[in-house]
Every structure is written in C-alpha cells, then in structure tokens.
C-alpha cells in the first residue's frame, strides 16, 4: 500500500461519507413529505470504486438508484438536491426529480428509471464511441441491478455488445433486492455472472462492499476494454441496507440477513481498515465527517432556496 493509495482511500472514504450524509439528509426531508428516493446506502463502495477508475472522456449510464454514481462522478449535492425537490437549479431543471437524473456535463447520460432502459441504450452510446463520436479511446460503463438482469433486454444488450465488440463495461450491483422481492425469488442461481458467461463474456464477481476489491476488478476490466475494444462484465455482490424507495419500513426484510450486511457496511469496513493500517486517525475521520455535514447543509440551503419551475415552461424541451 503506497502513500498515494492511502491518500486515494482517504479521499474515497470522504466521498462515501458525503454520499451517505447526502442521502440521510434526504431521508429526513422525506419524513416531512419531500418526494421519495431510492438510496444507495450500503452500495457506496461499488459506485466510488468503479467510477474512480473511469476517465472524464468515458460515459456512464445509471438508473433510479443514482445518487452514489453521480456524487462519485463529482456531482454537486446542491444541484442534486434541488433536482430531487423539483426546483429549477436541479441538473434537469426539476423535470426529472430523483428518478432519472442525467448530468451530461459529467458524462452521466440517459439515466432511465425504467429498469432495463439503461441496458437498452448503453450499446448505442458505446457504438457511437466506437464509430468516432466523442473522445478517442473512451468507453461506456452501465450500472444496473440484479433485477434489471431479469429483464430480457439484459440478454439482448450483452449479446449485441459481444457480437459488435463494443467498449462497454457492464456493472451489476447485485444488492439482493428487486424492490420488494428478494433476488432468491427471481433467479435459480445467485450469480448474475453465470448468465453473462453464457454470452462468452469475461466476468468478474467480487465483494461490492470492499472498495479495494471493487477497484482492482474495475481497473482490470477497464484496461481490458481499452486494450481489446470488447465488453467486460463486473458483478458486485452487495446489499441494499435501506428500503427500496423512501420511506420504507423494510418489514419484509429478513432481520438476520440485514444485520449481517449492516456489519459489512462498506463505509465501516473502509474506516476500520484505514484506522487499523494506521493510515488515518479518528480525528482525521471526524474532520471528514464535519466537512461532509457542512457540504450537505449548504446543499440543502441551496436546494430549498431554489425556485420552482414556471408553469409557462411546462412544454419546453418536449421537441428539439
């Protein structure tokens, strides 16, 4: 573990803390009636570990559970929160709300809350890259869940990416839940990767709560894509620590399973690891926590101060 690595991990911990604080702030707002969200709580290492190995020229597609991906990519929590609240200063001017936030300026494109939507569009984004649009050598990463893998378009997307040799990284965050249905009720096998292997795709399946494992696998996959121009498949085994869509009492969740995964909270694991390895002390981490709380407080202020869209703009942006 080099100094730069340790510096990187500290930055990653702060990003994960920021994501967590941002989403917990939203959950609090939702107790008072703000629009609901699908939080990434428990999956922060997946987002940060993968997105840290991507470059600015690369493109990212995400879905309804996008906050971690967006913040890991450098999105402004204030503009994100404004979007969730439906205000003009949101990334989509309030039209999206929390469920389909795109940020073209960050390379986060075509976010769809139709499960499978991102998988249907990702090959086209990668095809454009392959055919010379955007910066040379760029690749596309598409983030999706275990549930999305049950949609037929998953199979179509993999087959096309393999057949057309598209520079596409499939990132499946297998968080064991598909809204209110447990993964075990929907698939005979617990691994999405076994489906992907049927397509002759290179697959890796790693612990999604261990950021080091995630990043190592992602680095390897991205390098292979840039070298060969062919797609890669990454399954990150993780867990949805909160409900599907806030507010959600998780009454349907097995308490023991939840408890087990809570003990494997990726933020907790990274913090302990940094402390244990003497790469950070409690004070430094407390300082981080203070910084992210301050950023989230500013974000909230910004979002709440932002205006509602004017009724006159209702039909803007329907047609080009």
């Amino acid at each position, binding site marked *: 573990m080099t100094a730069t690595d340790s510096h990187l991990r500290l930055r990653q911990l702060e990003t994960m803390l920021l994501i967590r604080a941002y989403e917990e702030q939203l959950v609090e707002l939702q107790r008072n009636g703000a*629009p*609901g969200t699908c939080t990434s709580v428990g999956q922060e290492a997946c987002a940060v570990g993968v997105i840290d190995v991507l470059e600015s020229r690369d493109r990212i597609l995400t879905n309804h559970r996008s906050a971690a991906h967006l913040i890991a990519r450098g999105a402004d929590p204030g503009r994100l929160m404004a979007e969730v609240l*439906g*205000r003009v200063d949101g990334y989509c001017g*309030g*039209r*999206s*709300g*929390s*469920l*389909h936030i795109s940020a073209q300026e960050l390379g986060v494109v075509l976010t*769809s*809350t*139709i*499960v*499978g*939507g991102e998988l249907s569009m990702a090959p086209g984004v990668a095809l454009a890259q392959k055919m010379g649009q955007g910066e040379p050598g760029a690749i596309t990463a598409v983030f999706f869940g275990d*549930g*999305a893998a*049950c*949609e*037929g378009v998953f199979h179509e997307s993999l087959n096309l990416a393999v057949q057309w040799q598209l520079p596409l990284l499939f990132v499946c965050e297998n968080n064991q839940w*598909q*809204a*209110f*249905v447990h993964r075990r*009720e*929907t*698939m005979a096998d617990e691994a999405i990767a076994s489906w992907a292997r049927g397509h002759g795709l290179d697959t890796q399946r790693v612990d999604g709560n261990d950021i080091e494992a995630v990043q190592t696998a992602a680095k390897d996959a991205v390098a292979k894509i840039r070298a060969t121009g062919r797609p890669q498949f990454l399954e990150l085994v993780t867990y949805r620590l909160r409900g599907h869509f806030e507010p959600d009492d998780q009454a*349907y969740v097995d308490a023991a399973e939840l408890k087990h995964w809570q003990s494997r909270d990726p933020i907790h694991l990274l913090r302990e690891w940094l402390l244990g390895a003497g790469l950070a002390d409690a004070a430094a981490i407390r300082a981080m926590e203070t910084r992210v709380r301050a950023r989230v407080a500013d974000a909230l202020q910004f979002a709440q101060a932002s205006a*509602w*869209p*004017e*009724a*006159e*703009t*209702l*039909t803007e942006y*329907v047609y080009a």
Partner: protein
Amino acid sequence: MIRMTTADAIHLALREEMQRDPRVLLMGEGVATKRADLVRDFGAARVRNTPLAEAIIAGTAVGAAASGLRPVIDLLFAPFLAYAMDALINSAGKLRYLSGGQFEFPLVTLAMTGSAWCVGAQHNHNLEAMFVHAPGLQVLMPSEPADFKGLLKTAIRDQNPTLFFTDMALLYQEGEVPQTSEHLVPLGKAAIRRVGADLTLVSYAKTVAICMQAAEQLHAQGIAAEVIDLRSLKPLDEATVLQSVRKTGRLIVVHEASGLCGVAAEIAALAATQAFDSLRAPVVRITGPDAPSASSWALEQAALPQADRVVNAARELVARGTSGSNTNLHIA
C-alpha cells in the same frame, strides 16, 4: 355501505374473487410481499412474486388465461406496460380473432398512472388511449372506490383481456362501498354523477372530481352542468354520452391524458358525428399537454386540468352560444 380507500377496495375485490373462484391467480413484482394476507389465505401458488420482467409476466398470463386460469397481473406503473405490449396487444388482443375464436383471454392487467406523487413520466403516463385504440382489449379507469371494487370484480369474471388503470391520486381517497361480495359494476356503462340541462361535462378518473367542483361553481352561477364519469373507456358508453349531449347541446371533455388521439378526441368525434344537430356550441377539450409528465410538483400542477378552466370554458359556451373561437384548450 362501508367507507374505504381505493387501495382497500381493490384489495377487497381481489380477495373476494380469489375466494369465489380458485382459477383466479395474482402475479407481479411484489404482489406476494405486499398482499401477504392473500398468500396466507389462498396459498403461494395463487399469489406469485415474479422476476422483474413484464414481458414474461404478461405473456405467462396470456398463456395461462387461454389454458383455464384467470390471471390478474400487477404491472405497477403504466409506463412499464411498454415491455408488455406484445403480450397484451399482439397476443391477448389478436389471437382470439386470428385463430377464428379458438381462445379466450380472461385476464386483468393492473397499472397505476396519473400525477400526484411527483414521480415523472416514466412512472406517470396516462396512455390508456393507446389500449382503447388497440382491438380486442377492454380498458377501465374508475374514479371512486365503489367502482374500483365493482368494475375490477366484473373484469375478473369477464372473458376478455382488460386493462385496469388506477389514478395514483385516488389511491388513498375514501368512499362508500357496498358491502356485498356481489357488488358488480357492468362494463361499458358510464355514471351520471350530476344531472344538469345546460351543458355536459365528460371525464374519468381524477378529473371527474375537477368536473364536480366546476359544476358546483357553475351551479352557483346559475348554470346546470351534467357530469358524466365514463369509468369504462372500452367498451365505451356512447349512448349515455350522446343522450346527454342531445339534451344539453354543449360538451366539454376533460382528462389528464394528452389530447392528440386521446379519449377526449373520441368523445368529441362522437358528438360531431352523432349528435351534431343537437350541438349548440363548439365542443371543448381540456386535456393534459402533448408533453411527458414532469416530476416537479409545480409542473405536475400546471399540467393538470383545473376546475377554473372548466368553469371559464363552460361560461363561454353558455354565454356565446355558438360562436366559433378556439375551444381546444390543451393545457399550456
């Protein structure tokens, strides 16, 4: 009569029909989780959580319906029907006809839509007119708990494939519901919610309440509006609509869905083709805009037909008799 929400009325209809007929089964993403009491009482074989795959949920329901079962599938939100179009439109809607009557498809598809929850166009899209246009399908979209129960029960007992849409805004609204387990509302019968001689307001789902508010305000101004709740978009109760228009000579159609080739276009065309001589003024359409639904609460409100728009249009019609200025009031 017993007071309950739309959500409870739907649940009770499902419970009563599952109780009544062992061939009825429920499938969908989370139905077994959310309706655990039905799993308990009718067994896991008849209340099935499914993989996240609308095409196979709907296709399986079509295959099962043709093979002796009576499936009800919950596809959650209307835009997700996009993945079930082949099963619903090409299979359920056409294979009876193409086979020369060899199959029947007693199948009900549930989906939610409509503004209220600030969820945006990929959860909120009033696309019921697309299914009205498709042959072989029936389309229901009630406005009050009693009809949610009575129409859903009738649809489950019917031999034809039926789309059953729930306007999200109505889900937790309460109403009086007949207690009997034989409360059946016939398909293809509109409900006259208020009687009036001066003009006819035709609507369905959440905008029925808008029309009732407008009628109340118009009454205060001496204008008697008749309010028709279509409830059943297909089969469509043309007779009730025509009878009212022939009586009042004035027609305003109101719905949240966008206007182009929507249900309001069909109702307006009905009047123009079959009640023309009775029409004393231009028909008016007050609909949602030709735009996806935005999530922002402010824009959700802006897209929704409001009572004052209905009132103003009604007063104009009554006042100017038959003058012909633009009466096509798409919102925005």
